[in-house]
């Protein structure tokens, strides 16, 4: 078993509402795993648990074999990149400042040029502030910041959710290329089956805080675990099959 991230009986409740039922799940090294499901199914909660923005009520999370705890969380966070829907860029820093915030010790210019090329971000825009960038450019900067320390794990929480369709399609293509080039272990949260099918090696379909089925799109489509799987796939069929 070549798992980078392991969840053992991990659960989370918000007050009385169950966000994640006790869950066992493994994320394979070098693969892109997509967490998909309707709003409130627990996919973002799982991502936040993995980077310890949330503390699990029960169970254990291991990254590269070592259990995640308050003691090693900062060290682990340095090895994990995290991209969220609105980018989470710091408005008082330029694109360059955002990217290099945690990477001051790196050979800056060489590393930056590489990252710009990788994410197709124009080098001349590095001195701009987030407010001066387009939505797509902001997500590219956010991606550069996440990749700056060559993380062993990349977490993306609906990173393309707020972009218009053309920009979104271009970024999907670029993301796929980046993942392949870097052999990046990535976990991507989306509610868009087409995006999941395009980017994901493994798809994890979730509903009401639990995992319904894990597999490739073909497996989900041909051997649905239950009627919810078929319904979910059929609802987005026109997109998923084109």
């Amino acid at each position, binding site marked *: 078993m070549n798992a980078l991230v392991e969840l053992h009986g991990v659960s989370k409740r918000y007050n009385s509402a169950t966000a994640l039922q006790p869950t066992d799940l493994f994320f394979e090294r070098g693969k892109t795993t997509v967490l998909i499901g309707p709003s409130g199914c627990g996919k973002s909660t799982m991502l936040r648990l993995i980077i310890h*923005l949330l503390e699990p009520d029960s169970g254990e999370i291991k990254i590269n074999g070592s259990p995640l705890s308050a003691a090693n969380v900062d060290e682990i966070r340095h090895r994990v990149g995290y991209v969220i829907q609105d980018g989470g*860029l710091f408005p*008082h820093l330029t694109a360059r400042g955002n990217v290099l915030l*945690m990477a001051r010790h790196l050979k800056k210019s060489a590393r930056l040029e590489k990252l710009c090329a990788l994410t197709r971000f124009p080098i001349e825009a590095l001195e701009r*502030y987030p407010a001066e960038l387009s939505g797509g450019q902001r997500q590219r900067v956010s991606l550069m910041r996440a990749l700056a320390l060559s993380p062993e794990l990349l977490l993306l929480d609906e990173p393309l959710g707020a972009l218009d369709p053309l920009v979104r399609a271009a970024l999907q293509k670029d993301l796929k290329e980046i993942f392949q080039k870097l052999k990046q272990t990535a976990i991507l949260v989306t509610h868009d089956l087409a995006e999941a099918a395009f980017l994901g090696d493994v798809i994890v379909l979730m509903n009401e805080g639990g995992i319904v089925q894990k597999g490739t799109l073909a497996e989900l489509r041909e051997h649905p675990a239950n009627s919810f799987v078929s319904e979910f796939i059929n609802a987005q069929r026109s997109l998923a099959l084109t």
Partner: protein
Amino acid sequence: MKMLGALLLCATTALQAAEPIAIGSKKFTESYVLAEIAKHSLGAAGFQTEHRQGMGGTIILWEALRTDQISVYPEYTGTIAEEILKNATVTPEAMRDELAKNGVGISPELGFNNTYALVMRREAAQRLSVHTISDLRAHAELKYGLTHEFLDRHDGWQPLVRRYSLPTGNVQGIDHGLGYEALRGGSIDVKDAYSTDAKIAVSDLVALEDDLHFFPQYKAVYLYRLSLPADARAALQQISGTLDEARMIQLNAEAEQTRNYARAADLYFGNESQTAEPFTRKLLRWTARHLELAGISLLLAVLVGVPLGIVASKPGPISQIILGLTSAIQTIPSLALLALLVPVPFFGISVRTAIAALFLYGLLPIVRNTATGLQNITPSIRESATALGLTSGARLRQIYLPIASRTILAGIKTSAVINIGTATLAALIGAGGLGEPIISGLNLNDHATILQGAIPAAILALLVQWSFDLLDLLLIPRGLR
């Protein structure tokens, strides 16, 4: 609280480093003039001096002297006996001994006796041949207009009537200032006055002689700390015996006409305008002190307010307590806050008290804006900063505070402008600043003098506002503008 005290101490010991001899005065013209004469005389003897104008009444001045917050102030023997020693029949020797127990010395009498007197128009007094109070007995037709205080005092009207057997048919109570108008207009013929009142000379009045020695003696003296250097004490004693009633009336009149106490003091020394401080220098001195008061208090408010605001930005009972307390301080009227601080031993009548009060007023905008600025940071920014693996200190320094800087600076700006305005009240406790001309202008009911302080204070507030706008350009990151 300990830290706060230490900070205040640092700020104020810096001020004390070259502390001049502090001369106090009460809130009336003659006291101002006598203080200026002492200042002039000490200055001529080579001492640095500072005149804390119009600090209040007898008790405030005495407490300030007793606790070594001022070193000299002019006082009257009657007042020392009645109000300070509470012993109307004390002998001069006993008075000297009692004062010495408090570390206070008394100069020989300056020469004049500022007691109550009955005054009449010179022309009427001459026409009726009234020169002494006893002469009034023969003129039951005269109309008396007396201040309400004089009518009630135990050394006032009733005992005076008994002593002199005066006719009492024609007496009415009237305000002091209005009484002079009434006397000049002829609707009254006799009124009570202070024997060195400038109005006596200006309105061509005469004071009737107290031939039965009814009124207590209010001989002017200087009270001073016995710890003053011998040269300084000698300089004060040189003034003794040089001021008779006529001279004092003349100096008081000069002060009230020119609205310039220093000039009246110069007149005493016989060089009319040579050493009078030119207006521009006075303005500079007031402004410098004003900026010092507002600046030090603002600095302290920033040093304390920003950390408090950071703590208050996290929801919970501590935040409620901090915001509640700083708001409560703001609701205390500034005069009341000064009055509350003055009896506290460390503060008293001093620059310290003014700075402490201004510091307390400056807190709320800074604390509140710091807390609000930090609370307004979006969850996605907070999550991103946390997920990057920044420590909580680094998140605050590198991310949250810079993002909140605009709001925090706005709070500091508000505090600065409020402080410039409120610092005018510092003059009430002798701390100087642009409030000095405002307070003396109010005492003299002289608008021009009030404006000498009010206009520069308003301009200063604008300048501070503008310089903070410039500071915004330097301190607020470009991405946030």
